[in-house]
C-alpha cells in the first residue's frame, strides 16, 4: 500500500493521457514567436549567438527524446514476450533514461478484445511488467517505472479484425518527472 500511495503521489501532477484520454497528451514547448520589432530575416544566424534559437534547439531535442520514450511497442497474440521490433524500440529508450535520471515512465499494458475481459486486464499487466523488466535489464532502476493495465478497454483501432488486434496488443508510455529532456548524442 505504501508503494502504491507513493507512486500515486509522484504521478499526481502529470496528465496521464495515455490511459484516460481525458486530457491532451503533453506537448513539447511551443516555439517562441519571432520578436515583433525585428523583421524576419532570411539570413541564417549562428545558433549559439541567438538565445531563442538555442531554446528552440533544446525544445526540439526534448520533443525528439519524448517521442522515443513514448514510442509504443506491440505484442503477439496472448504473449508478453518482447518481440525483436519491440526490443529495438525499448533499446532506443535506454540512453535517454540514463541521460535523464529524474524521468519516470508509466507503462500501460493493453490487449486485443479476444478472451475474457478480466484475463485481458491481467495480460495487460503482464505485458507492462515484461517491458519494465526488459528495461531494468539494461540497468535502469525498476522503481522508475509504474506499470498498469487497461486490458482491452482502450483500443487504438476499434475494429474486430487481425489488423486492429495487432495494433491494440501494446504497451504505451507516459513520461513524468522531466520538463526538458536531454537527447544524448545531439
Amino acid at each position: 500500500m505504501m508503494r502504491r500511495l507513493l507512486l500515486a503521489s509522484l504521478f499526481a501532477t502529470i496528465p496521464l493521457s495515455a490511459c484516460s484520454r481525458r486530457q491532451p497528451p503533453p506537448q513539447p514547448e511551443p516555439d517562441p514567436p519571432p520578436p515583433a520589432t525585428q523583421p524576419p530575416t532570411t539570413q541564417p544566424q549562428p545558433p549559439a549567438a541567438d538565445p531563442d534559437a538555442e531554446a528552440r534547439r533544446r525544445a526540439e531535442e526534448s520533443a525528439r527524446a519524448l517521442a522515443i520514450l513514448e514510442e509504443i511497442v506491440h505484442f503477439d497474440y496472448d504473449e508478453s514476450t518482447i518481440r525483436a521490433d519491440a526490443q529495438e524500440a525499448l533499446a532506443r529508450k535506454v540512453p535517454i533514461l540514463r541521460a535523464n535520471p529524474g524521468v519516470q515512465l508509466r507503462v500501460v499494458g493493453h490487449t486485443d478484445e479476444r478472451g475474457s475481459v478480466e484475463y485481458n486486464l491481467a495480460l495487460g499487466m503482464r505485458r507492462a511488467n515484461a517491458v519494465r523488466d526488459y528495461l531494468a535489464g539494461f540497468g535502469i532502476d525498476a522503481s522508475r517505472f509504474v506499470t498498469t493495465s487497461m486490458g482491452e478497454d482502450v483500443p487504438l483501432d476499434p475494429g474486430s479484425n487481425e489488423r486492429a488486434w495487432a495494433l491494440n496488443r501494446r504497451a504505451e508510455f507516459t513520461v513524468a518527472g522531466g520538463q526538458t529532456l536531454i537527447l544524448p548524442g545531439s
Partner: protein
Amino acid sequence: MQRKPVISVGLLAVAVSLLAGPAPVMAQDQPAGIRLGAPYNVQRPLLAVRPLAGAGPIAEAVDSMTRIIQRDLRYSNRFSILDPVPQQLRAGEVEYGPWNALNVVYLVAGDVQASAAGYTLALAVHDVVYGRVVSERRFMLPPATDPDFRMAVHAISDEVVRWTLNQPGSAATRIVMTRQNGGGSYDLLLVDSDGFGMRRIAGAGVQLYSPSWSPDGRRVLYAFNDENRGWVLVERDIRSGSQRVIDPGGDMLMTPTYAPDGNRIALASWSDDGTQIFNYDLRQQCCLTRLTGSSRSISMNPEYSPDGRQIAFNSDRIGGNAIFIMPADGSGNPVQLSPFSQGSSYTGPSWSPTGSKVAFAGWWSRQMYDRAQIMVADAGRPSAQIEQITARGNNRDPSWAPDGRHVVYTSTGDGAAGLYIIDVETKTRRLLAGGANLRMAEWSPPLLRAADLVAQ
C-alpha cells in the same frame, strides 16, 4: 408460368429452429470432448394465465400483474404458453372442460382486491388434466407505484413454477453488469431479469470490474481502480446505496467472489509471481491466503461451488487458459475441467447454484478465437463430454440464474451485441439488454420469495 413455391408450416418451423439454434456448419470441426447442443423441442406442458379479475381503479395494475406473470412463465421456458387466452374463457367460474379441450395442463387464475397496503391477490393454480386445484393462496402486494411492485409479482411467478413443477424460478432476480463507456468511464448497472428497469447504481472515471452478488442478494462486491489507492474492493449495499472499501492489501485486486456463507471472499491479485487466487475473511478482516501455487501463471475468476467446498477458476498454467477445480482451501492438485486441444482457451467459469454444472467461455482452436462459445461441463465428471450451448458470434462471461437452467452472457449475437439469456435445456435465447459495451454480467440469487408476501 411456374407456380409460386409454397413453404409449408412444417418447413418453416424447421427453418426457424435452424436460425434460432446452433449453426450446423460448425459441427464438422467439433473436437472429441465437446458436443454441440441441439435445440431441444421437448414437449412442455401447456399453461394458461387467465387475466386476473379486478376492476375499477385497480384495473390497470391488475392487467399489469397478468402480463408480468405470463411473460415470466414464458421466460421460464418450462411451459408452452396459451396466448391469447380465448375471449369466452377470460372470466367467470373456472370450468375445466373448455381448458381441457385446448390441451391446457395448468391454469393460473385469481382475483385482486385493493387493500390498505396495496393489493390482495387470491391466486390459484389448477391442474386441468386431473381437474383439481394444485395450490391456492392469498398474497399481499405493494401498490403499482411502489418500486417493489414488479419484484413482488415476479416472486408470484416463481411460486407458480414451484407449485406446478416443484422447481426453482428465476423471475424475482436482477442482473448486475458493467458498462464501459470509453474515455476511461465505467458504470455499474442493474436490470430486472425481464429486462425492465435498467439503471446505473455506481460509476466512475476509473476501472470498475467484476461485480459479484452477496449470497443474500443485498450487496454487490466489485474491483475498483481508485486513483489514489490503486485497486481496492468495494462492497455496495443495493438498497441503501452505502458502500465500504475492502482493502485486504496486495496489488491489483481482481475478480472478487463471495463464498456461499457470505463471510469469506475469494479473489485474484497480481504479484511479481503472476496472478494468483487468494481468500480473505470478511468478518475478521484478515489475511490474504494464497490458494493457487503455479508460479508466474495467471489464475483468476474463482467461483465457489454451492456447498462452498470447491472453487472453479481459470488458469494459463498449461499454456493456454483452461478451467480447473480445486478444494476451497487450495489443498491438493487442481483437476482440469475443460478439454485441452492445441490453441484452446477457456475462461470465466460460473458454477450452477443448483448442482454440479459449470459454464465457461472459450474456443478449442486458434481458427475460432474470435468466436468464443459458451460451454457447460459437469464438475462431478471432469472427463465427461462437455456441451457447447451457443454457436453464433463471440460469446463471453456466462453467469447462471438461480434456477440452474438459464445463463446470461455477453454476445455479439447475430449482429445485435448485448447481454443474452439462454435456456440450457431448450437453447431458447432472448436479448436481455442491447449494447456492445455491457460486460461481466452476474445473475443475482432470488431477491424475494412469495412466502414473504403471504397474507395473514
